[in-house]
């Protein structure tokens, strides 16, 4: 009898706890989704182009999107630039990071530890400081202004070897006997890298490609500087950001919202498809520090 009562209260308690959990989760979902809903709503607002109190547009329409694709603004140019940059960066950066990570995971050489320490220390310097220097270097080789796109690609990928940690963490979990077996089987180190290691890295490969593809979409500082006013060298983040300056926000805020939606959609689709790999990468990276 007592036991029965106990179990009843247990199940009752469970239902209550679960109900509360669902309510909290629902609330959380709303909080996290709502800003994007607002963003979407605002992008259809043609009643007031500035910041408003109301999230329901006073007038609906596609004008903001039409504006983006009209000749009045360079949004398409920015978008194209960013896409090209992201494409190149995700390929080159992935290659660079794999080269670094594979070397540090599989080879033992005199300068290995010093190299890792130096990269750790370099990472502690605030990067913004070096912006003007990078600008001058790029200027010297003629990759600013109209040629900012290759310049930006160069800067994004040049030091990307320093971000090898996540991949190395993954590689370290692959048994070394695989390398050794391949070595005995007659492969040289390059063949091991290409034929054995790389095919085993699919999850982390996708993670790296995904994150390095997303990176260039968010750079609104350096891209703005390097392009030096040239629309041919501007990226979408810097462009959209310039619409929010005090002088522009009143007439461009809804354009910003529409632009934001257009930028977010492809990345988001990509992300939702590859979520599994992203989660794997994030978790692995964090645990390994």
């Amino acid at each position, binding site marked *: 009898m007592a036991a029965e009562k106990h179990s009843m209260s247990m199940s009752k308690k469970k239902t209550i706890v679960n109900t509360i959990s669902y309510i909290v989760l629902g609330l959380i979902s709303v909080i996290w989704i709502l800003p994007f809903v607002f963003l979407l709503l605002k992008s259809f607002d043609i009643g*007031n*182009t*500035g*910041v*408003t*109190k109301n999230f329901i547009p006073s007038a609906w329409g596609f004008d903001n999107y039409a504006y983006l694709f009209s000749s009045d*603004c*360079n949004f398409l140019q920015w978008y194209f630039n960013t896409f090209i940059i992201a494409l190149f960066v995700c390929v080159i950066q992935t290659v660079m990071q794999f080269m670094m990570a594979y070397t540090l995971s599989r080879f033992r050489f005199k300068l290995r530890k010093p190299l890792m320490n130096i990269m750790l220390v370099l990472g502690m310097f605030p990067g913004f400081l070096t912006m*003007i220097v990078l*600008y001058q270097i790029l*200027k010297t080789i003629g990759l*600013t*202004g109209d040629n900012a796109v290759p310049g930006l690609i160069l800067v994004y990928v040049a030091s990307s070897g320093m971000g090898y940690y996540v991949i190395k963490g993954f590689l370290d979990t692959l048994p070394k006997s695989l390398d050794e077996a391949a070595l005995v089987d007659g492969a040289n180190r390059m063949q091991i890298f290409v034929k054995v290691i790389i095919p085993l890295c699919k999850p982390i490969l996708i993670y790296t490609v995904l994150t390095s593809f997303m990176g260039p979409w968010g750079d609104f500082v350096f891209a*703005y*500087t390097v392009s*030096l*006013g*040239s*629309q041919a060298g501007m990226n979408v983040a810097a462009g959209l950001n*310039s619409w929010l*300056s005090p*002088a*522009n926000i*009143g*007439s461009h805020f809804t354009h910003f919202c529409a632009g934001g939606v257009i930028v977010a959609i492809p990345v988001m689709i990509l992300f939702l498809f590859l979520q599994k790999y992203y989660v794997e990468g994030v978790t692995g990276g964090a645990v390994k520090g």
Partner: protein
Amino acid sequence: MMKKFIRKSMILLPALLLSACNFKFVYNIEGLPAGGLDFDDDIEDSGTYDIKVWVDDKIVDLTKSQIGQFVTASGGKYTINATVEPVDEPGAASKMLLDVQDGADLFVFAQDQLSRLKVAGSLAKLSNTYVDALTEEMGIEAVNAAKVNQDVYAFPITSDNGYFLYYRKDWVSDDAAKNMTTLLAACAAAGGKTLNFEAPSNGFYAASYFMATGCTSEWTLDDASGKFTGYKDTYNSPEGLIAGKALRELNTSTVAKNSQASKLGDTAAAVVSGIWEYEVAQNRAEKNGWELGCAALPSFTVDGKEYHLSSFDGYKLLGVKPQVDAKKASVCRKLARFLTGEDCQTERFGEASWGPTNIASNQSEKVLAHKGLQALHEQHKYAKAQGQCPGAWFTALATTATTIVKASSDGEVQAALDTYKAGLTDLLDAD
């Protein structure tokens, strides 16, 4: 008065002649447009030039066509490969500082960046002939706006960077808009509609009160180092206290809102803002069927005495960067002169509503019909030129104003002013 009239008519004369001939431009012998005149011509500067120009997004196309006009006007003397890039004013200033060599040859910037750009070597000094001509066409105030100490460094391109009062006419009558008390009353009467005036939180607007009562803050700039070396400031004074009281008074009103963002005609009955709001406001008015009113800022009364709200005259300037090539320097200046000349200014006003600095342009019918610009002109009587001061001074003023607004007694207002005064020396170093 007489002198001014003569000067005006002198300038107006060719323009009148021009319109009579039904030509847009009058050319002199060398083929330069009117206003271009023939000074600086001891240098033979015909040829082909690559010229980069940075202007606001809104006038990129216009500027391109105006450069085309310049080339046509030159009658083949110049060929210009112009690159006109959309760079807003703050952007232009920071980019010129980043890289003057690859930066634009001509660029539009806001007046407050003048001293910084000058010190960094991004602006070439104008010769006296230019200064004289500019003074002639635009008046001394405009030229002063481009002056650092004794020298002039840029061509004033628009004077509309100041601010004035917008209101919805069926809620606020023209008379009510003249005085702060009546204005607030009218707002309240319209059903708790607001007056948006960013006076406490923005030093640019807060200064209106202090300048109205006669306070001044002058800063001396060391030419060589580009550092501020001293100041003469009377904000902490009986006059300052009056201004402070008025500020406090304003914010005790329930309808006064410390905000610039306009929802004119909706939740706001009146807004203090600049010409950049005009188009949006006008559109809203037309769409929603009410009449837009523009006027000078209202006056306010403290202890029975009436003061008229002051404001800053805001200029945007067209800068010419120093050139390695003397010929190009000459052409760039001529182009800048052309772009800030009467015709271009008038045209620019027509296309993008940039208020002209050119006296003659200002007399054009269209300008006269522009309610916003007229209000700005009206306010101009009470306005002060924005001299050179540390950027942090505006921050300091905003902090002070914010404290004053919250003050519960005049004593606290005075205390805020004392703090302000004490912090001034630090500003010298901070900028």
